[in-house]
């Protein structure tokens, strides 16, 4: 399994990570070596084996549909890089 530089740039875009050309080349090597490492899975016969997503195969619990949280708007906004009038501020999205 060998990734091209274009593949790395596409993965980085999907993951929303900025990469320069130098980074992309480094990751091309390091991602390829991880994919080589996991390649040995493909030789294992797993026909009829169900995927295991939770070690104890627990099901999600349901709770009553009631309000359990108080409004802590100020506390949650306090960590944001930019806020205005009680809202999170981001760069302009629509021209």
């Amino acid at each position: 399994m060998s990734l091209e530089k274009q593949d790395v740039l596409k993965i980085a875009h999907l993951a929303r990570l900025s990469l320069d050309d130098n980074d992309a080349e480094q990751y091309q090597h390091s991602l390829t070596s991880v994919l080589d490492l996991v390649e040995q899975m493909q030789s294992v016969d797993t026909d009829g084996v169900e995927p295991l997503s939770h070690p104890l195969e627990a099901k999600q619990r349901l709770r009553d549909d009631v309000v359990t949280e108080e409004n802590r708007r100020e506390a949650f906004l306090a960590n944001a890089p930019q806020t205005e009038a009680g809202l999170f501020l981001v760069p302009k999205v629509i021209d």
Partner: protein
Amino acid sequence: MVDQSIASLAKKLRAKEISSVELTQDYLARIKQLDGQLNSFITVTDEVALAQAEAADKLIAAGSTSALAGIPVAHKDLFCTDGILTTCASKMLHNFVPPYESTVTGRMLASGAVTLGKTNMDEFAMGSSNENSHFGAVKNPWDLEKVPGGSSGGSAAAVAAGLCVAATGTDTGGSIRQPASFCGISGLKPTYGRVSRFGMIAYASSLDQAGPMARSAEDCAHILQSIAGFDANDSTCSEVATEDYTANLDAPLEGLTIGLPKEYFGDGLNNGVATVIQDAVKEFEKLGAKVKEISLPNLNLSIPSYYVIAPSEASSNLSRFDGVRYGYRCEEPKDLMDMYKRSRGEGFGKEVQKRIMVGTYALSEGYYDAYYLKAQRIRRLIKEDFVRAFNEVDVIMGPVAPTTAFGIGAKTDDPIAMYLEDIYTLSINLAGIPAMSIPAGFAEGMPVGLQIMGNYFAEAKLLNVAHKFQQATDWHTKNPSLAEGA
């Protein structure tokens, strides 16, 4: 002071031989004196600690029976602590002050434990050497040229050097057990779901589990007692009742059947480590245990399975760091996409970005079945190996890692070699069973940990087995000269 157990300190606190404030001042002074050499703390919370110690002294005077009341501890810097900087050792969270408390730290506070500070770690818990920290590498107190292990390396180094009585850690693929082994302390990864993950900054949600790191199995038992048990705030937290983890520590081991998986003693295991483990097993035979060779045939597959599942879950979990609500935001973003990409590209370190990209690839259209689902099918095979084994034996023993602590920088050029070193710990997280590392001797002057694995929710049994070993041996009381001299 470095030798003091939670039980002996609790006795002294109640006999008024020492106050929690005095004890806390002693530990804060040790941190100031020694941590410049170790870099085990990211944040030291002097004022908070002294205020908590004062409150604990009142609690003790009022008759509190909690073993942790007034005991100074440290928390891995991925547990959210209300009003205290929580960085996950990342530039991404260099300024994050949580507005709430994790269940683990909250329960320890309720038990009266005193928070000395937050310990260094591999960024977002990704690493086995504690070299991947935005705040610099942590040094091993037994040899400052060597790594303490990771990702809970700061917690392990701090406990080993006597900078706190005990600490919390988290273990996704060995991050409590391997640093405990490298630093010569005791660490327990509980059954998946035994301890709440609420307020733990997530790495791989189906594998992450918090646990105690301390000087002895008995100390681990006291901490587990405080933190274990159901929590409605974590949808994967188990409703299985907790046990009294200190009640049966002294139960005799006659008739105990120990499984030795042949895959844990094959090629790649350092001779010095192998000798220590074999000697430890002989010690258990003296205590009345029987030994049986077993096989965990899919052990080798734990590495590829883990390095698909963990990065996949990480890529999903870490998508929350977008530069909008908390954490790092790049300077002067051109537009929203530029802000996402540069905030994440500049805020995350290289290892974290690599794992995010591995996961993104494994989960992307056309690859999901071949990677993520395949890894989960193999995960079931690994679990079934353990289920079969525990039909025949009570506990399983083996090494924690193939070697002792390696040199700082020795493996940074070959990350795959570092991944392969996780061979003895990853399968435990994939199966979700509990496991401990306890000090069992030394190889070339560095500590070696014995790994003890148990069946689901058998924490009390593991602690009993470990405690009996520590009653018969004194490996867990050894201190690095750095700690003795202070």
